[in-house]
């Protein structure tokens, strides 16, 4: 089947285990994260252009991609570091607004967090990944009353004040 004509049925593919590593730059205050499949992820400080990245923390994580069972189209989710449940803590935040625009009271907004929290590079999670995640999680719901909406983290008003519940194993499986 041609991918363009396919009504995708997504399934988890390329499940992989590793560490989610968070680094911070003391120069600009920026934060980045990346997924490492190395047995011992790097913890050394290093310079990258004007940035001086230092290890802030890391913990075990599982990552996966989505692949269509009909047409085999693969959507890599390398740019998604974690998902976060929005608690609609800030009426000015676009994530909460998006959720409230949806019909009914059982819409659950989840934010796909990208590697560059500050979005200094102008990039965020891919629209294709966002769409595939939304379709995948809604396809598994038991009834029409509940709806999952996945949005990119660039819609967040502020990562510093955000009170969302991050679906990551912080504290549980921290690097030793």
């Amino acid at each position, binding site marked *: 089947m041609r991918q363009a004509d396919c009504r995708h049925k997504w399934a988890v593919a390329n499940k992989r285990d590793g560490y989610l590593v968070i680094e911070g730059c003391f120069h600009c205050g920026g934060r980045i994260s990346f997924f490492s499949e190395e047995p011992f992820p790097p913890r050394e400080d290093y310079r990258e252009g004007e940035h001086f990245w230092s290890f802030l923390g890391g913990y075990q994580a599982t990552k996966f991609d989505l692949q269509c069972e009909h047409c085999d189209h693969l959507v890599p989710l390398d740019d998604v570091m974690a998902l976060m449940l929005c608690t609609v803590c800030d009426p000015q935040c676009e994530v909460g607004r998006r959720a409230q625009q949806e019909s009914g009271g059982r819409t659950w907004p989840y934010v796909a967090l990208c590697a560059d929290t500050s979005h200094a590079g102008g990039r965020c999670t891919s629209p294709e990944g966002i769409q595939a995640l939304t379709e995948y999680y809604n396809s598994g719901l*038991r009834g029409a009353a509940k709806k999952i909406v996945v949005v990119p983290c660039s819609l967040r008003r502020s990562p510093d004040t955000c009170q969302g519940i991050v679906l990551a194993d912080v504290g549980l499986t921290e690097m030793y």
Partner: protein
Amino acid sequence: MKVSELVEQAGLKTFHRAGDREIRGVYISDMVSDIIGTQEGNLLLTLQTHKNLIAAANLVDVSAIIFTRGREPAEDVVALAGRADIGLFGTADDTWTLAKRLYEIGLR
């Protein structure tokens, strides 16, 4: 098997009773980043009792959650499970012992 039947047969402690779901399988995990890659309808067995777990379980629409080894969720965790309509149950057994018991009861 329905969640209510399982709770009765396994003698589970109830922290929150939600809509009576059909159990489509069993998944054992203590990592939320692992749970979000599972399928809908699974019964989740875990040691974790924090809110992150409920947020993950809601995303994959689990049939219910059983906390093992006597772990008990805090009030805010139960409240979030209530909003998500997820049943929360507990047992003093460790996860392995509970898994064997679920198999004997008939869950596959």
